[in-house]
C-alpha cells in the first residue's frame, strides 16, 4: 500500500499514517516518532501496565501502546503536562523497587535508567519503599534479582508464548505484586529454563541476568551510554509499513 493511501492521525500536530490494527505507539514508532515507553516491546502484544506512554487523545488520557490508532485522532504527547506525568511514574518505579544503578549489571542497558536520564529525572523524589526481595541465585547460569522488577510481564509472555514453558508468573496484589517461578521449591534451578530461552532476552531492567558475562561490555560503552533511549527506540522499531506477520 502507498503511504498516502493510508488513514492517519495527528501526533503533536504531525500527520502519522497507520495500517488498521496498529496502536498509536506502533504507528508513531514506525513513522519515526518517539513516544516514551517502558513495558512496550515491538515483538509482543502491548501490555499497557507502566503507563509511561500515556498521551492525550482528543483531550483524554490513554496509554499509547494499547490505544488503537484511529483516523482523525488528535494525539498530544510531547507536552509539559505529559512529560511531568512520565517523570512522576518513573520516580514511582524507582521508589518502589531497589534500584542501585551504580552496582547494577544492567546499568547502561536498562530502559528504566535510560528513561530517567532522557526525561531528566534527577531524584526518586518520593520516599523509598526498600522492599525485602531476596535474590534467587540457585541456577548455575542465571541470576534473578527481583529487586528491580517493574512487572511488565515480558518474561512471563516470552516463556509462555515463545519458549512454550511458563517458567514465570506474576502474582500478589497491589504493592505486594511479585514475580514467581514455576517450581514447588520456588527456585529457578528447579524449573526447565534454558540459556537459549527468549525469556532471558526481554527483561527491560536488571532482573534476569546471565551469570559469568556481567561486565563483558564495560559501563560507559553500553546501549544507552552511546545514545539516548529516544533515539535507540526508533532504531529498534519495525520501519516497514506492512503488518509484522504475513
Amino acid at each position: 500500500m502507498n503511504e498516502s493511501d493510508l488513514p492517519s492521525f495527528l501526533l503533536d500536530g504531525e500527520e502519522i499514517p497507520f495500517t488498521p490494527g496498529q496502536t498509536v505507539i506502533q504507528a508513531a514508532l514506525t513513522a519515526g516518532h518517539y513516544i516514551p515507553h517502558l513495558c512496550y516491546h515491538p515483538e509482543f502484544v502491548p501490555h499497557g501496565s507502566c503507563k509511561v506512554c500515556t498521551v492525550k487523545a482528543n483531550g483524554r488520557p490513554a496509554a499509547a501502546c494499547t490505544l488503537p490508532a484511529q483516523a482523525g485522532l488528535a494525539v498530544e504527547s510531547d507536552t509539559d503536562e505529559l512529560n511531568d506525568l512520565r517523570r512522576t511514574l518513573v520516580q514511582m518505579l524507582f521508589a518502589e523497587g531497589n534500584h542501585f544503578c551504580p552496582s547494577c549489571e544492567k546499568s547502561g542497558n536498562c530502559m528504566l535508567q535510560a528513561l530517567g536520564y532522557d526525561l531528566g529525572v534527577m531524584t526518586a523524589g518520593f520516599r523509598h519503599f526498600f522492599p525485602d526481595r531476596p535474590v534467587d541465585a540457585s541456577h548455575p547460569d542465571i541470576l534473578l534479582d527481583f529487586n528491580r522488577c517493574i512487572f511488565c510481564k515480558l518474561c512471563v509472555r516470552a516463556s509462555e508464548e515463545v519458549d512454550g514453558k511458563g517458567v514465570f508468573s506474576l502474582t500478589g496484589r497491589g504493592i505486594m505484586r511479585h514475580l514467581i517461578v514455576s517450581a514447588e521449591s520456588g527456585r529457578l534451578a528447579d524449573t526447565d529454563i534454558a540459556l537459549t530461552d527468549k525469556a532471558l532476552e526481554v527483561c527491560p531492567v536488571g532482573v534476569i541476568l546471565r551469570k559469568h558475562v556481567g561486565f563483558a561490555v564495560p559501563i560507559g560503552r553500553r546501549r544507552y551510554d552511546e545514545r539516548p533511549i529516544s533515539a535507540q527506540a526508533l532504531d529498534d522499531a519495525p520501519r516497514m509499513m506492512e503488518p509484522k506477520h504475513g
Partner: protein
Amino acid sequence: MSRNDPYPSVDAVVERYHADAAYLVQMLREIQETRGWIAPPVVTELARTLGLSRARVEGVAAFYSFLHLRPVGAYRVLFSDNVTDRMQGSEALLAYLSEKLWVEKGKLSEDGLLSIDTTSCTGLCDQGPGLLVNGRAIPRASRERLDVIAALILDRQPLDQWPAELFAVEDNIRRADLLLGNRLAPGEAIRAAILRGRGGQTEAAANERSWREANPAAALGPAATLEEIKRANLRGRGGAGFGTGVKWEACRNAPGEMHCVVCNADEGEPGTFKDRVLLNRHADLVCEGMTVCAYVIGGGGATRGFIYLRGEYRHLLEPLEAVLARRRAAGLLGRDICGEPGFDFDIEIHVGAGAYVCGEESALIESLEGKRGIPRSRPPYPVTHGYLGQPTVVNNVETFCAAALVAVHGGEWYRAVGTAKSAGTKLLSVSGDCERPGIYEYPFGVTVRQVLEDCGAGVGKRATQAVQVSGPSGTLIDASEFDRRIAFEDLPSAGAFMVFDETRDMFDVARNFVHFFAHESCGFCTPCRVGTAMMRNMVDKIHGGRGTQRDIDEMCQLSKAMHMAAHCGLGHTACNPMQDVMKRFRPAIQRRLRRLEFAPAFDLDAALAVGRRMTGRDDAGAHLETEA
C-alpha cells in the same frame, strides 16, 4: 497426593468441572473449603491435571485474599475493617478476641488452631461489626457473641454445629418502592417479554390486532422488549450509569458463537449491601432480569448466564442454587424456556475469593475465566469481546431487577418515576451514625436531607457532619450540601450512604478508605500499584503527627498521576477520599500538620547552657543556631 489423604482428591474436583481451566478459581476455592488451605503439592497437582504451568496456578491463587497458600488454622476469623465497623467498635473487639484466644493479629496461633485478621468491608454495615469465620458471615459482633465463638473454637466444634442464630443476617428493609414492593410471580417478566414480541404487548392475544394496527412500526420479537428498556431510560446501578438499553443492543448486534449474561454481584464497595438483600429476598427477580436479557441479546443462538457472587456472600450460595433448581423445574431456565422453542438459557454461580477489583466488569470476566482479576485494556469492551471473547452483557444485580419490572410494565411506566435523567428508583444501603440503618428504596431525586431524616440521623443528639455517598470511590459531602439529590445529574450513587456525626474525625475516615484502596489495588499499573501504597504511607505519617506540607504536596502530585494514568476506575477514584477531605474538611488535616508552625516550648539552646558551663565555652560553635 499421599494415599491416606482424607480429602476429596484434586482429580475429583477437576473432573466435576470437566477439567476446564476457566473454572480454576472455583476449583481452588472448593479444594480449600475442605482442606483449609492450598498446599504446594496441591498446586502442582492441579497444574498438572489442567495442563497449566505451576506458576500460573500459584499466581492465580495468590491474587485472591481468601485463597491461602500457607496454613491459616482450623478457624480463620476475619473482622470486617470498614470505617463503619470501626465506628461500631471492631478494633477493640478484635483485640478482645485476640487476647482471649492468645493469638496475635495476622499470625497463626502456636497450636495451629486459629488465626485472626481483618478483611475489607463484608457488607454487613447495617448490622456490624461484621465477621467472617471460615468464610461464613456473622453479623453484630459483640463481646457476648465473641465469648460464644471463642468457646466453640476452643471446643473445636465444626462450623455446621454452631448455633444458626450466630449466622442470621437481617434484610432490614426500611423503605420499599416499586422494586422492593413488586409482587411479580416467577416467570411473569419472561412471559411478558415473549408476549410483547408477538405483538401482544402484555395483554392477551385478543387485543393484539388493534394494538398492532395502532403501532404499525413497533418492533417484533425480542427487539420489542429492547425498545421498552431503552424507552425506560434505564441506567446501570453499578456506579457508572451506562444506558442499559444501549448496552444490550450493542451486545445483541455483536457477532459471536454465543452471547453471555453476567450478573455483577461482587458488591465490594465499602458501605454497600443492597445486592445482598436483593439476592436474599428477590433472587427470582434477578434471574428474571437475566433471562429477559438473554432473550433480548441471544438472537436465537446460544446463551450462557453467570452470577458472580462475592466470596463474602458465600452464605447465599445454597439458597441461590435452590432458586435456580426451582426455576429449572418450572421451565424458567434450561431448554425452550416458557415453551418458546429454541429459547435456551441457564445460569451458573461463580463465587469470588476476596478481591474488590473483580467488581470491575473486565476484571470480573478475567476472574470468571479462571485468571487473576486484572482489568483488561479497553477497547474492545465486554459487549463485543467478553467472556471467552464472546459478546457479554455485565449488569449490576439491581439493574437486572429493574429490567424485569420494565419487561412487565413497559418503559413509560418506569420512566414516570424519578427525574428527567434518572428514571426509576434507587436502593440505598444506609449505615453509620443513624438510628435505623438498612435498605431504603427511593425514586431518584431524593435529597440527602430526606434520607437523613428517614434513617434517624442527627435527631436530638449529635448533628450529622458528613455523608459518604456511593462509598470511598464516590463523593464525601458536608452539611452545606445536604439538599443535593441522589441522581445521575447530581450525586450519582452505587448505593452506599454512610453517615458521620460531628464527633467523627474525617481524616480518620479518609485514612481508612486510603488503606482500603491500597489493599485492593490489583497491582497491574504503576500509578495505582505504587500510588495507593504511597498514599497509605503518607496518611499514616500524617496520622502519626509527623506530617508536613510536603506530604500534602506529594499527595496532590500522586492524585494527579493516578487520576490521569491509572488503568481502571479503582486507580482513578482512589484519591477521592483524601481530596474530598482536603476540600471540605481541611481543618481535620491541618490540625495534624501543626508541627509546621509549632514552636516547641522546650528551648534546646538554653538546655546546652550546662554543657557550656562545664566546658568553659561560650563561642558561636557552642550555641545552636537561633533566630535573631
